[in-house]
């Protein structure tokens, strides 16, 4: 049976060489290598659930009176988009579990990409020859963020309408081209009746196709270059140590897919997410309070909230306030990320190809910079909920905002310096566990080397 299949294939496409090599391909085994796979499998769940949802959702702003399965909204004037999303949740069997799994999978997809990115950054896996995959991976992150936003924005509920309104205002703030850009993307002044169907086409067709294509290239390059590995044992730059694809790695990876799918479906069934029936339909003169975006846009939301009330005016021209936190900051963020392999090579790297990873402690400067950057974005993320913090802490929101304005400058510096010290301490203490590193090596890292 197997023999006949192999022969059949080989006579037609000559694939046995590739198949044999692939079955025997060796994969290094380390827990930190799983995040990219988790992202991949979350994407598979997104595609499967997304196809189901697309069969029911109507990307239309045609107005109607709601008469569906959610009684509290009976009689409300709603759009076909919002109506079909409610019907999907209350009128279609297994519809709600699909919708919520899709939303959870999107949040996990971006989270897994971000953690994967951190792993690559802190272990130097982006170095030659893997720069191309670093750039593809970053592009995948941008597309994932964008598609997350287009996905939850097209339901025409009050929360997502608020997000669209802010996105429109951010586009308007761009110098020279902002007004035209906003009008071309939205099809006119906000709120236009064209944006929902545009979001739909972009969300279900254009971006998923791009993501699929880039994932294919990303994996093909990993396959070709073979995976990186941590130094130690018999591992060198010229070999790969691990388990063979067939059967062990294949079984493990399939198990990981099933595990990711089981957690996402459990969340989709048991943990409510984006309850659009509680937000209500979009009306231009109303707004939800509090209003937070999905987690992965929290940093831009926080930046918008704590950026001081500055803008630049001259001769009637304005560079509007949102431009700085919501266009310039993300622009600089991703520019630095794209340039990072080049920057890293300039500061302490080399031009040689590397297949062995660096431990974070071996490059304290890079590790400290990464930790400082993560702290910066974490403070911004928290600042995105300054209204909720004000409520929980019974403190005026103005005070909270000022605390964040200070923290966003101070915290990254403090964390960066502390991490730099810690990494130096780890260097001098060898491979001991964190808890075994003597306190004095944190306090006087350079002197403790000769203990």
């Amino acid at each position, binding site marked *: 049976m197997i023999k006949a299949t192999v022969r059949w294939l080989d006579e037609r496409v000559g694939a046995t060489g590739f198949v044999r090599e692939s079955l025997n391909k060796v994969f290094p085994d380390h827990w930190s290598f799983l995040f990219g796979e988790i992202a991949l499998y979350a994407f598979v769940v997104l595609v499967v659930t997304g196809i189901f949802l697309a069969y029911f959702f109507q990307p239309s702003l045609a107005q109607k009176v709601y008469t569906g399965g959610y009684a509290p909204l009976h009689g409300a004037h709603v759009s076909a988009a919002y109506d079909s999303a409610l019907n999907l949740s209350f009128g279609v069997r297994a519809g709600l579990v699909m919708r919520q799994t899709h939303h959870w999978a999107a949040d996990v997809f971006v989270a897994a990409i971000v953690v994967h990115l951190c792993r690559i950054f802190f272990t130097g896996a982006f170095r030659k020859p893997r720069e191309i995959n670093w750039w593809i991976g970053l592009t995948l992150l941008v597309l994932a963020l964008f598609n997350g936003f287009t996905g939850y924005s097209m339901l025409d509920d009050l929360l997502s309408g608020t997000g669209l309104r802010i996105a429109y205002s951010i586009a308007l703030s761009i110098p020279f081209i902002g007004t035209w850009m906003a009008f071309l993307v*939205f099809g006119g002044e906000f709120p236009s009746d064209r944006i929902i169907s545009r979001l739909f086409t972009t969300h279900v067709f254009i971006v998923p196709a791009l993501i699929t294509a880039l994932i294919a290239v990303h994996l093909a390059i990993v396959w070709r270059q073979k995976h990186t590995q941590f130094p130690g044992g018999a591992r060198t730059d010229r070999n790969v140590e691990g388990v063979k694809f067939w059967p062990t790695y294949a079984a493990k990876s399939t198990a990981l897919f099933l595990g990711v799918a089981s957690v996402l479906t459990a969340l989709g069934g048991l943990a409510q997410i984006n309850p659009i029936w509680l937000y209500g339909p979009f009306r231009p003169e109303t707004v939800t309070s509090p209003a937070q975006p999905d987690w992965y846009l929290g940093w831009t939301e926080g930046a918008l909230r704590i950026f001081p009330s500055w803008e630049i005016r001259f001769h009637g021209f304005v560079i509007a306030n949102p431009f700085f936190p919501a266009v310039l900051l993300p622009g600089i963020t991703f520019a630095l990320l794209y340039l990072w392999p080049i920057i890293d090579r300039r500061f302490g790297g080399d031009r040689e190809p590397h297949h062995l990873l660096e431990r974070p402690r071996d490059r304290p400067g890079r590790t400290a910079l990464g930790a400082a950057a993560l702290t910066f974005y974490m403070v911004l993320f928290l600042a995105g909920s300054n209204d909720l913090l004000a409520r929980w802490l019974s403190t005026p929101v103005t005070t909270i905002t000022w605390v964040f304005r200070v923290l966003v400058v101070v915290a990254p510096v403090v964390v960066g310096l502390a991490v730099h010290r810690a990494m130096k301490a780890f260097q001098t203490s060898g491979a001991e566990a964190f808890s075994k590193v003597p306190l004095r090596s944190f306090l006087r890292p350079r002197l403790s080397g000769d203990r």
Partner: protein
Amino acid sequence: MDERRDTQHRFSGGAIAWAFFLSFCGSVGLAIVYTLGGQVQLEGALLFLSLGGLAIGLVLWSHWLMPQGPDLEDRALLPWDQRDEEQAERAFAAGMSEIARRKFLGRLLGAAVAAFGFTLLFPIRSLGSRPGSALYKTAWRRGARAVTPDGAPVRADGLVDNAFLTVFPEGKTDQADSQVVLIKVPAGAFKTLPGREDWSPERIVGFSKICTHAGCPVGLYQAQTADLYCPCHQSVFYVPDGAVPTSGPATRPLPQLPLAIDAEGFVVAQSDFHEPVGPAFWRLGRRP
């Protein structure tokens, strides 16, 4: 030694079998729940069971009963083949020189392709209307009655102190850029700005409801402090001084709508806003 491995194998096999069995039960359960009409929490739990059972069974199987290596594989260093590279370069250069020989044709080809590339921009222009003066004006006109979102006109004598409501111009409740907050300010609690002395008849003031920061409706009014709050990014506007921003990221006051009261006692507009409403844009101060 062998005996111990036997026991271990039997135990492993048993655990894996249980995991697969639970998964099987989960799928059967799913079929039953679905047939009975579906229930979201049960569906989530049963999906967790059927997928999770498979995952745990497989991971235990691969961990306990499959070869664990470590296996070693050689890694070829790039470039794989120096000679291949040279041949590819030569092949490309040969073709390139063929093209370069026809300089005139090559240039014309370049010009034609560039011209066609430019025409590909036209469909982008079709995506939206010309901004023109759209951002500088709203639907408010001289004598337009203020109506609530349901279309009910507002009588000036029907408003008590600190009354706060959202209005649109009559017949234009779908015009998002024309939303206005009406506030009846208590006596002595409002400074009329120079040039706006007759904009607030009977202490009724109107301000654009669209935040000048990022365009959210400024939906919260706190009467004690006379502050308007934007719930999106926490900008605060102080009404008595002409809705100037006092906290948060907003930089410009909310534009004020000149109001009047018509012969029948309804609140009307004297004119459109005197400045653009909503978030700032590049040519904000250069009305065409």
